[in-house]
């Protein structure tokens, strides 16, 4: 390959700055005039913040539960009274299991709590059982529901033990844990840092995935190539405006996190900002690489969704805990830039700065950026040969 260095790096720096400035102004103008870009860059983050902040919550509220009181004794009534008092469960009393099952099948209730007819008798013998049936189609709701119901029963056990003046066994640690978290709207706290990752990925990966492909499609690339412009200038001019949009999205998220949802920031702001900039650069260069390789806007946007947005949503630990996934998926997650940014963001918000973690994750992000931007540059050679 006879490609000389001069194609990439201009010898005269004043020319470099002049051309970079001209291209950057052009990109900004196009960005502002293209309404779909603005929609993705500004309105989508706002919509996501409101949607995730208020709409999506992993906690349950007023979940309908059928309560089958087969045993009419006061003791049995007392047990279920504990369920009624909570915000999480909206009880519906029925008298037979068949009725409850019908409700369940019609998805009118999410679970059934059954007090069997021999409950008080068995309880008197020291081992009363309460049956809990949970609708399993929604795993998250099912798990939460199980938690609330057993917590309520445990609570009743405890009260009864106290009133009986006997020392009872300590309640299950996991239950206490769950209750403790639910004392605040904790899943919002947990989700907002992940949300920032999602928005940065959208702006960085998805928006930029189109910009080079668009130049190929509209034939502007060919015209640009036969000017003194260098490929590095074309790439930089594309990174700068979208970097600004990404930082704008980050600011929106931070304001929302502190102002609307009162998410605490335990770490320092500057660590969060640097982490965000690093991640944004990685996402931008990945988007540019996709765009340069695909040379077709439709293909580029599909690829970007599949290899940046979806993994950031599913595999970065944003929604699903990575400790519980198979090793294969853990390996995939470990090469995703989003995984490290989720880790850094959660650290900043919820845990506070941890130097070892910062050094490790920053290094990984910097290496990823260097690899990706080099790839994008190699893919944007000034030639029409493929």
């Amino acid at each position, binding site marked *: 390959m006879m490609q000389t260095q001069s*194609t990439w790096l201009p010898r005269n720096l004043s020319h470099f700055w002049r051309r970079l400035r001209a291209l950057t*102004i052009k990109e900004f103008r*196009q960005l502002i005039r293209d309404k779909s870009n603005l929609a993705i860059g500004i309105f989508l983050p706002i919509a996501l913040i409101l949607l995730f902040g208020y709409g999506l919550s992993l906690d349950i509220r007023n979940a309908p539960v059928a309560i089958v009181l087969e045993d009419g004794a006061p003791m049995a009534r007392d047990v279920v009274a504990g369920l009624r008092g909570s915000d999480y469960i909206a009880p519906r009393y029925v008298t037979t299991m068949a009725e409850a099952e019908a409700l369940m099948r019609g998805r009118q209730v999410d679970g059934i709590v059954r007090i069997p007819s021999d409950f008080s008798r068995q309880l008197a013998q020291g081992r009363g059982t309460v049956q809990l049936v949970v609708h399993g189609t929604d795993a998250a709701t099912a798990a939460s529901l199980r938690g609330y119901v057993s917590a309520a029963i445990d609570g009743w056990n405890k009260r009864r033990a106290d009133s009986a003046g006997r020392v009872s066994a300590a309640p299950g640690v996991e239950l206490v844990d769950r209750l403790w978290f639910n004392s605040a709207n904790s899943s919002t706290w947990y989700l907002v840092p992940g949300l920032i990752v999602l928005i940065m990925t959208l702006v960085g990966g998805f928006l930029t995935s189109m910009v080079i492909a668009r130049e190929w499609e509209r034939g502007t690339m*060919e015209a640009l190539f*036969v000017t003194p412009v*260098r490929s590095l200038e074309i790439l930089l001019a594309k990174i700068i405006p979208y970097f600004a949009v990404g930082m704008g999205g980050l600011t929106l998220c931070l304001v929302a996190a502190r102002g609307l949802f009162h998410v605490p920031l335990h770490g320092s702001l500057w660590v969060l900002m640097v982490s965000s900039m690093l991640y944004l650069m990685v996402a931008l260069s990945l988007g540019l690489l996709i765009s340069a390789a695909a040379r077709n806007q439709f293909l580029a946007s599909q690829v970007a969704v599949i290899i940046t947005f979806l993994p950031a949503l599913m595999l970065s630990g944003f929604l699903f805990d990575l400790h519980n996934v198979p090793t294969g998926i853990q390996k995939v997650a470990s090469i995703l830039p989003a995984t490290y940014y989720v880790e850094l963001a959660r650290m900043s918000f919820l845990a506070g700065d941890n130097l070892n973690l910062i050094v490790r994750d920053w290094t990984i992000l910097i290496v990823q950026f260097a690899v990706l931007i080099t790839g994008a540059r190699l893919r944007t050679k000034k030639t029409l040969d493929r």
Partner: protein
Amino acid sequence: MTTTALTVDAKDVVKRFKGAVGGPALNGITLSIPKGQLTALVGPDGAGKTTLIRLIAGLMKPDSGSLYTLGIDVAAKPQEVQDLISYMPQRFGLYEDLSVMENLNLYADLHGVPMDERRERFDRMLSMTDMAAFTNRLAGNLSGGMKQKLGLACTLVRSPRLLLLDEPTVGVDPLSRRELWRIVQQLVEEEGLPVIVSTAYMDEAERCKHVIVMTEGQVLAQGTPDELCRPAKGRCFVAYPREGELARTLQARLIDDKRHVLDAVPESGAVRFIQAGGTEPRDLEGILLGARCEATPSRLEDGVMTLLRERATQDGHEDAVETKNSSVQLDTKDPIELIKVRDLVRQFGSFTAVASTSFSVRRGEIFGLLGPNGAGKTTTFRMLCGLLPATSGFLEVAGFNLRTARAPARARIGYVSQKFALYGNLSVTENLTFFGGAYGLGRQELYAQVERALDEFQLREKKDERSGELPGGFKQRLAMATALIHRPEILFLDEPTSGIDPLARRAFWRRITTLAAEGTTIIVTTHFMEEAEYCDRIVIQDAGRLLAIGTPHEVRSQASGAANMNEAFLEIIKKARESRQTGFNAVEA
């Protein structure tokens, strides 16, 4: 860096594309283009013109051979070449969401044109292109012709050492075409700028000092236009049809006799043709049927057609049109009016794209719509096809009023759009079957029609190939076959010959005249004014108004003293614009 007297110096340049079927795109090009002259590249589609220009511009590297542009080894130092040249690709990369001025400024910045020089240069470019009034308009809102002019202006924001133009006038109307050439010639004269231009128009090549004829990746011939006329010398004739015979009927008979006639085109009511070598007058008696025949001096187009046809005969592949029906002659006085248009108006907001237009088209007529970019042709066209409702007026197609019965009218028409509008990843047969089904053909009928189309349009050899990967000529035949799959009474063709080489255009028009002879009504738009001679009647539109209607002869005589349709067209448009005396702006309708 070496200094030579050559603008381009190529030796045995070969360029092959990965995965491409057939021979290499460039197959041993050896060329030397001297400094300071206007050079034209002509030849059929796929001859390798664009590839050669891209290699000269350093956008691709040759697989073998050496290529020097302005004395620089362009494969080794593409950037050095690109710092010196200006290049306008076929589809020039204007940023449609930037204004005229912003586009100019961007390219000036990229080329490093200093501010003081820039003002003078911009003034000159804007006045040359007549765009001084539109500097704030977004490039995307300009008409096709204005976009090309802006593209040229952006290419010329600085004085290059070499200007490369790749088919700058494709899809551009005669008016804008003339203006583009005026600009180029002015630059050649004033700045001594060397220009290499590829073109499908022979009258453009005729203006150049040096013409290079390419075919199948090779240089077939080169020389001055005069030198290239020679192959056809003494073989060009004009035949005048007998009373009551259409020029295109005589033309069809002539062009069908491939053994004795190399080329025939209708021109000014007569037929111009080139005899094959060794043809005796009596060989043509059976075709001319007593039509008066005169010798005429050969032109560049005749020379090039002769070269290309003789080469194609040697290679033994020709795009021969199935002409079994050429003897069928329909009575052109058929009184049935298939299309009736009265006081048709279409407005977009406050902008009137089509103003009070009336005409009618008879069964079996070839009816041409001519006009500059933005004249309202496409809008008229879309209303006739029922794709766009009229603002007011009466519109009847195949007996159906388009206001009340759009669907039944659509079943009677076929439409070939300007761009390739078929499914690129479906095969030829799949496309035909799909569109046949969409038009509601029953299974047996559909099968029969697909088989017929494969034969009639010579698509059988490629019937299982993906449509998107077909060569240009096949794509166009497939588009026509698809539009005709349901045997419509009326066929609409929107600029069917834009960017198509002369050989393929002859074959295309031979098909159209056959269809018309069989009774299909044809409505066609074109930017090649000489093609209007194939039409029974034409209209000329400008700024939404109908300026002329009639047979080609009637329209020519409306512009007194016009030798051919191109001149008549320019004259009629000029007169109409002068009489209006308003600042015309060509907004694409």
